[in-house]
């Protein structure tokens, strides 16, 4: 258990990260850092310990999924070890990308942080501007860690993907910062995984004890229950709203085909998505032929096939971070679509993305004896 000095958990954690950096647990640290205006946070790769000022280990916004950044940082030879402060969904995305050989865990030290959720980047910036208080929403989150309850603050609510996230605690991080069940002005739990245990002991960092916090486990269980309830409600409402593909398209007709959802998605790692290839660069006369055949066609084209194809390609590994929703300029319920469909597809294979880097994704393997019903095999 780490005693918090001066009631300031952020400063205490910064001290811990500084110690890790100076003791060469890693050579550089990827961590969210506050913008000078305080209106947001940006993941920053830090080498100089002085730059750790203003870093926020559990930043209330997540503009970019760290897994995408960590893919670039670890897949080649970075020439050192990269430490990364990651939320649960970012860590799960890292695990998924490892299975697709897009992240090398050897070069990575993960510091997982208990996460109550994040706010939309725009909402956060507006709130800071309105209240002139950089820490307003951080205080809201810190108040919630003891019980796991976060109150909507003046109409600003956590992102929907966070409200329905059943994985608030990171799984198998090298170091876990445990906030749940604790009063962060007093203490913060630091859990060290097997990989770093001997390193920490040799370098005399932290006195390690076997004690496990029961209150954290309890808060996590009840939070998961609550999140599952919310998740199932979201699934139900989505299914009612989008009973068939035509109705789904009523909602998705305003998709502008910017591909932001694909760019923001940590799992969509293809350097050349098929939708960016000449396959989908239709000739001008083709549009006229389609319009003639159908009377009229909505522009731009290929919206339904884009989402169906993206589902077919990556929904088995969707970890539900919801950045697709946050990135969509039309505010489409992309994350809800992917989570609802993903739930069914992942259950079919008893697969939970991000749970275990040794597991093989369903799209990358097969069994000789399976899926008789789904394919209607008849003699």
């Amino acid at each position, binding site marked *: 258990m780490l005693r918090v000095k001066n009631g300031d958990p952020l400063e205490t954690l910064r001290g811990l990260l500084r110690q890790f950096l100076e003791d060469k647990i890693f050579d550089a640290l990827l961590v969210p850092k506050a913008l000078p205006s305080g209106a947001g946070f940006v993941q920053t790769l830090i080498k100089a310990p002085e730059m750790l000022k203003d870093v926020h280990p559990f930043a209330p916004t997540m503009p970019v999924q760290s897994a995408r950044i960590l893919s670039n940082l670890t897949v080649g030879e970075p020439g050192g070890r990269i430490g990364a402060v990651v939320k649960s969904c970012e860590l799960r995305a890292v695990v998924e990308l490892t299975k697709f050989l897009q992240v090398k865990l050897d070069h990575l030290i993960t510091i997982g942080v208990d996460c109550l959720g994040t706010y939309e980047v725009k909402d956060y910036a507006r709130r800071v501007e309105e209240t002139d208080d950089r820490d307003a929403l951080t205080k809201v989150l810190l108040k919630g860690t003891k019980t796991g309850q976060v109150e909507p603050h003046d109409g600003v609510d956590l992102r929907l993907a966070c409200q329905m996230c059943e994985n608030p605690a990171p799984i198998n991080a090298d170091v876990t910062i445990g906030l749940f069940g604790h009063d962060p002005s007093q203490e913060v739990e630091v859990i060290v995984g097997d990989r770093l245990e001997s390193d920490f002991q040799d370098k005399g960092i932290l006195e390690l004890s076997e004690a496990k916090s029961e209150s954290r486990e309890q808060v996590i269980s009840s939070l998961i229950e609550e999140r599952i309830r919310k998740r199932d409600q979201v699934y139900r409402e989505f299914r009612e709203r989008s009973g068939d593909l035509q109705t789904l*398209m009523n909602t998705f007709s305003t998709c502008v085909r910017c591909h932001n959802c694909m760019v923001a998605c940590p799992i969509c790692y293809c350097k050349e998505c098929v939708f960016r290839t000449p396959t989908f660069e239709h000739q001008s006369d083709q549009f006229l032929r389609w319009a003639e055949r159908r009377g009229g066609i909505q522009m731009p084209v290929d919206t339904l*096939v884009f989402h169906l194809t993206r589902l*077919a390609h990556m929904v088995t590994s969707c970890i539900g971070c919801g950045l697709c929703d946050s990135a969509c300029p039309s505010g489409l319920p992309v994350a809800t679509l992917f989570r609802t469909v993903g739930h069914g*597809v992942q259950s079919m294979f008893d697969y939970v993305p991000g749970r275990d880097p040794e597991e093989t994704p*369903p799209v990358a393997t097969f069994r*000789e004896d399976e899926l008789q019903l*789904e*394919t*209607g*095999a008849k003699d």
Partner: protein
Amino acid sequence: MSEFEPRIVAFLCHWCTYTGADLAGTTRQQYPPNIRIIHLMCSGAVDTIYVLKALMDGADGVLIGGCHPGDCHYQTGNYKARRRVAILKKILTELGYDEDRIWLRWISASEGKLFANTVTQMVEALKQKGPSPIKGMWTV
């Protein structure tokens, strides 16, 4: 008033099902003409997007024919096809589309009669179901 004639697009693997269809022809097995065959080397070469294009650009049903499990000319192509088709069917079911419009069948080169029967059954089933609701939605 003519009855609805379903249109089926079929992706048949060269080594088994396509040859089986050939055999159906040479042995004069009768089957309905509603089917358009696309000749591929292996059922594992069927990309999900081909199936989606077929269904959204005019087909009422899609038939994917491959070798029996264990007999794939390329060892494992049909197993991969099976997974891809299962995932696509699940996605379409979740979104309210009748996944039974996509048939994955194992038909070997010697099973000409089975091919003819499969097509006959499929046309019958699709006549019951009616036209596919997403037939004209390729550009949507």
